[in-house]
């Protein structure tokens, strides 16, 4: 375990860079993310198969490896 934590401290430079960039913009990113997922959910409401229950019930796959 101690060894693992040491490794985390030696984490790749890439991770460190990301963290530095993320910190001040975190709330802004959160907002953007929420807007992004809201758009996707709107779209999904439109494309999700009608009558989900029947759609799922009818999906039966026999004979697979």
């Amino acid at each position: 375990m101690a060894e693992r934590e040491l490794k985390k401290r030696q984490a790749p430079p890439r991770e460190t860079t990301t963290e530095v960039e993320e910190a001040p913009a975190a709330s802004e990113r959160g907002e953007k993310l929420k807007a992004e997922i809201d758009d996707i959910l709107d779209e999904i409401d439109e494309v999700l198969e009608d009558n989900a229950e029947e759609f799922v019930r009818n999906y039966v796959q026999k004979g697979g490896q």
Partner: protein
Amino acid sequence: MAIPKVCGIETEYGIQVLGSADANPTSAASLLINAYVADVATRVGWDFEDESPGRDARGFAREGSMPPEVETHLVNTVLTNGARYYVDHAHPEYSTPECASPQSLVLHDRAGEVVLLHSLEAARRLLPPGEEIVVYKNNSDGKGNSYGCHENYLVDRSVPFARIAHQLSSHLVTRQVYTGAGKVGRETPGSSSHQVCFQISQRADFFEEVVGLETTLKRPIVNTRDEPHADPQRYRRLHVILGDANLSEVATLLKVGVTSIMLLLVEDDAFGERDLALANPVQAIHEVSLDPTLRQLVELANGEKMTALELQWELFDLARKHAEDRGLAEVGPEGSGEEVLGRWEQTLAALEHDPASLRHQLDWVAKRELIDAYCARHGCGLDDHRIAALDLQYHDLRPSRSLFRRLEMERLVDEADVEAATRNPPRETRAYFRGECLKRYPQAIVAANWDSIVFDLGEDPLRRVPMMEPLRGSAAHVDTLFDGCGSPAELLRRLGA
């Protein structure tokens, strides 16, 4: 000693006919493939001469085992890109051509999806109004039935199979933290339908043994099928049957790339004194899948306990050391292995720091985020029918319905290259020779399989060209042979066949 990791993926797609109450999936799969072949491809049958799926890597053959295709005479064809496209039981199945790197395999796995999409379009023109065939790139119907996505890797025959099984199983059990495609519900025999939870892997529920030959029941973590489709004195084809089918290109790259690296370590016996074997691999694969928080501990045979992620870090450290000592050239040309190693490290770090940050990279994370957001918006639980529909529809290949396509996942390959890969074989393996022969002399080829092509030059007997070396028959080997070669007879003369 490590040898080049020629690799391929076989995907069984889920299939459903909408608008028809009594559709037969085998007929639908046949119609799909025939429609594609009639539309775009040249029809050449598969040659079963050298098939022996009942041969066991532990050194025995199961009596009476036959390739199921021989028994049922289902549709079976070879495409100009070197792939095999066929009906396996009740599923359409696409086997990519042999690829010389994980990056090339990502492209050809995607090309398989596009072949299926073209097939759907071609089939639509043949079906009565109101009927539509739909295919899903997933591994479970949510009712206890599973279908596979199998990987194949070329391995040095001189490496004892027992060592492969012993050293690889920890990786196969824990790699699901990045290869999982996510699933709602449990399907282990005896599990209650009330236990509705989100799990990382589609396939984990269906594994009951550590090592074995089966693929349809009592599935083993390490499969022992010994059918190299290559020189059996030199090669083994490791058949990995526990993976999830991935839509995410990053997940496919990691699935194939990291497993290739692990096989290099096994072949070079690079684990040293470190034995990471699990105490109970079957229990561990289920437990890891059931904990998307990634905190579940697994127990090693030596009594140590660690998370799947910590075990993956240990494997990563061994791999990095191996890369520094001996390089990763066998994974693929042009820094292919180093790219995988870098991706692997980033992914493990991100999973440790914040798994949700991989929502544009990994299937299970993307699906989980989507389901959580959907539940929050609609105030529903995981047992809602709409969640089951969403879980299934994530894998729907149709652009109009695919939920995966709406998530802006990171892309690794260019769409035009994918389209081209539905027609053109990879240039680095024998698939090139197979595909180019099919393009150039379709009328002269009566059958083909992984390790041979059979020509009919209009005179008896048929001429079989063996291809027992997976890396021979590449563009570098045979382009000059094809140059100015007017007929298949001349090609065979030049080959000295």
